[in-house]
């Protein structure tokens, strides 16, 4: 029984990680996007360190949010096109487990690298050193929530040909609480306040998303078949 329950999870996690490893250039795209768009901010606003540091918590989080959103669209689409999604749907496993595996893989491939690379942008934006650890932690937790919520949107828009902008419209309002608490974590650290509270709320969001989103994703995926 437990093999049936967890089998789907680890098998799909392994499969998606392997697929990501085989197309490493796809993997780098969101990271490069994150870096390039961050470069636009000093060019568009001002290069003064004080102003950039004031903007940094929000800007870094918005960039991470967009990078995650950009990559979530392809979460199910290639499986949908080559028919392996059909296999996943008719398999006797609990559908939530393979989905959990796929979303976890997405987070490991996109969200976690974004979190790890963020200190680089933090330095470029002259963010104080005390804010680096909270930034990495909040991005690591928050991008996992973003992956779950985004996957709901990706599953809903899967049968549509031009789902890209639509996906963004559906998912952005749902991302807002994560953005609020994510950037607040960094901001509190910059202001010298305790930041563990907002980080804990991000963790709570993740717990809710992890429990509920796979159900919604499963229901949405069944529509496409």
């Amino acid at each position, binding site marked *: 029984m437990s093999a049936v329950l967890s089998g789907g999870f680890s098998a799909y996690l392994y499969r998606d990680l392997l697929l990501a490893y085989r197309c490493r250039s796809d993997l780098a795209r969101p990271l490069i996007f994150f870096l390039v768009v961050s470069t636009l901010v000093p060019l568009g606003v001002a290069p003064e360190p004080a102003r950039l540091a004031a903007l940094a918590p929000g800007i870094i989080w918005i960039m991470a949010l967009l990078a995650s959103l950009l990559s979530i669209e392809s979460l199910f689409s290639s499986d949908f096109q080559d028919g392996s999604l059909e296999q996943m749907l008719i398999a006797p496993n609990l559908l939530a487990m393979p989905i959990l595996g796929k979303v976890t893989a997405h987070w490991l491939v996109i969200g976690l690298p974004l979190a790890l690379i963020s200190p680089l942008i933090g330095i470029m934006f002259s963010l104080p050193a005390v804010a680096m650890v909270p930034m990495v932690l909040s991005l690591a937790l928050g991008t996992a929530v973003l992956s779950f919520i985004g996957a*709901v949107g990706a599953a*809903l*828009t899967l*049968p*549509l040909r*031009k*789902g890209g902008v*639509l996906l963004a*419209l*559906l998912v*952005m*309002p*749902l991302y*807002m*609480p994560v953005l*609020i*608490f994510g950037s*607040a974590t960094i901001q509190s650290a910059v202001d010298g306040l305790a930041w563990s509270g907002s980080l804990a709320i991000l963790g709570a*969001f993740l717990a*809710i998303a992890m429990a*509920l*989103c796979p159900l*919604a994703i499963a*229901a*949405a995926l069944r*529509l496409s078949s």
Partner: protein
Amino acid sequence: MKLNRQWTWFHRLGSPRWFYQKTQCWLPWLGAIAAILLVTGLVWGLAFAPPDARQGNSFRIIYLHVPASFLALAGYYLMAIAGAVGLIWRIKLSFMLMKSAATIGAALTFIALFTGAVWGKPTWGAYWVWDARITSMLILLFLYLGMLVLRHAFTNHESANKASAILGLVGTVNVPIIYKSVDWWQTLHQPATIKLTSAPSMHPDMFAPLLVMILGFYCFYALALILFTRAEILERERRASWVRELVAEKQGGL
């Protein structure tokens, strides 16, 4: 056997034809009550209620703003519940109600935001302020727009129904979270410099017309929902024999 009988009424309730015929006789009543309440509330509120001590006459837009905001929010839940009922019991009528509720809800949210902006100019000196309630309302508008856009993206009614019902349910879980987050965000960024005159502190002379307006808006909402749904029923069931008979009857009468 007993179970069977219970389900018959439930499914009859879900039949578009039954709904269409049943609501026919409700419409004039509902329309009359809504019109009386709205006219009474408006005249009372705009002409007879005393002006506010600090805001003068500009506060009177509250008689449109508050009822619209109330129903915009309540309408989201109605829409989501209708979607859930449709998903669980596979009732077509429920999906039609959901679609109508989405359209009306988006319009009401827009009205609430617009009247809020008009009210904000004389009161706060700006059309737009990033106040917690305004921001949540804006996000609610985005949620409604997402529902409408998702619906229109599907060419197949069946998938459009189910997809928007799922999105509605996801949104329902999120609406309280969004509200709380925005509230918290607002207190973090700007201490409460802006305060609306809240309902309980209102003078009874001002509050009574507001209550009438809220009731009137509820009736108007019900009327609009029924009318939208009836139009939707006719469009979807246009190939059904009873709709054809109805059309033939209308054309014969002309």
